[in-house]
């Protein structure tokens, strides 16, 4: 139970609604994009082609690299003046002028989400790949003999056995992304205030960085964070189990 003072103090914070909205956007966007991309990439990596092993090994790098290092690296890539991204996009004529990816309110969240997807993707691909590769080839052959289209085969043959793997991928990603600190902290560090913070970086700022310097309030937010993630995961698991019971 939270101390009454801390609870009322937390709800009185003007930045809280923005931070909650940022957190929802951060988690939903990253998990959704990651899972959708992983489904396609796992299918690709499950096919036989020359160099498949090299591709699989190459994709381990973003996952194995330190998060803080990758986040700092993207700060450099996104740099307005010296970043390679603006230069590449200008060269390809995809943008007319350099973009301040991490300083513009309109782009900073999307820029952070892109990094979040980049570092979450590999783990999710491998979880889905484990599920895809466990499906026997005979099942696909049977679907082909029955005249099923590629789309029908995917939904009726590939997806049902993938559900447990997807469940694991979504739950672990939600927890991991919700609790992610280094990406938001590093890419958002030049922006004042809390306009692009998530619950985790907001908690840290309340305790150690903002004018509040209120460890009690940050601890109260920490308790809320744990409860939110537990309730979110339980809700998701119950929803999925209801659907499976109905199926």
């Amino acid at each position, binding site marked *: 139970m939270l101390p009454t003072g801390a609870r009322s103090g937390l709800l009185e914070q003007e930045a809280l609604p923005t931070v909650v909205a940022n957190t929802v956007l951060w988690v939903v966007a990253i998990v959704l994009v990651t899972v959708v991309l992983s489904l396609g990439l796992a299918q690709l990596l499950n096919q036989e082609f020359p160099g498949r092993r090299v591709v699989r090994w190459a*994709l381990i*790098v973003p996952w194995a690299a330190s998060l803080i290092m990758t986040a700092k690296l*993207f700060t*450099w890539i996104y740099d307005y*003046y*010296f970043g390679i991204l603006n230069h590449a996009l200008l060269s390809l004529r995809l943008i007319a002028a350099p973009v301040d990816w991490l300083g513009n309110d309109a782009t900073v969240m999307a820029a952070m989400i892109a990094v979040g997807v980049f570092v979450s993707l*590999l783990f999710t691909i491998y979880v889905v790949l484990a599920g895809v590769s466990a499906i026997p080839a005979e099942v696909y052959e049977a679907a082909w003999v029955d005249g099923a289209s590629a789309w029908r085969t995917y939904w009726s043959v590939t997806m049902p056995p993938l559900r447990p793997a997807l469940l694991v991928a979504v739950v672990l990603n939600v927890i991991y992304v919700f609790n992610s600190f280094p990406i938001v902290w590093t890419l958002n560090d030049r922006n004042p205030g809390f306009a692009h913070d998530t619950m985790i970086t907001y908690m840290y700022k309340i305790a150690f960085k903002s004018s509040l310097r209120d460890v009690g309030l940050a601890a109260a937010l920490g308790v809320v964070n744990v409860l939110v993630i537990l309730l979110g995961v339980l809700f998701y698991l119950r929803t999925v189990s209801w659907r499976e019971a109905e199926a």
Partner: protein
Amino acid sequence: MSVARAGRRAALAGAGLAVALVGLAPYAVMVCTALKPEGELRITPPRLTPIAWQPGNVAVVLGDPGFRRWL
């Protein structure tokens, strides 16, 4: 092997290569940046590869007593 099958394998290999390049591209930027002299880090327009390669940067880091202590 039929032409269609060979074409499919080539397309898959191309897609796989593209995915691997996207995954490794940020780290290629990191490696190239690590091999640039200080003055080349802030030039416009930025370059991916160094004009003057400076592999000695790695030796400087490895020779730093602070780095060894952290290691």
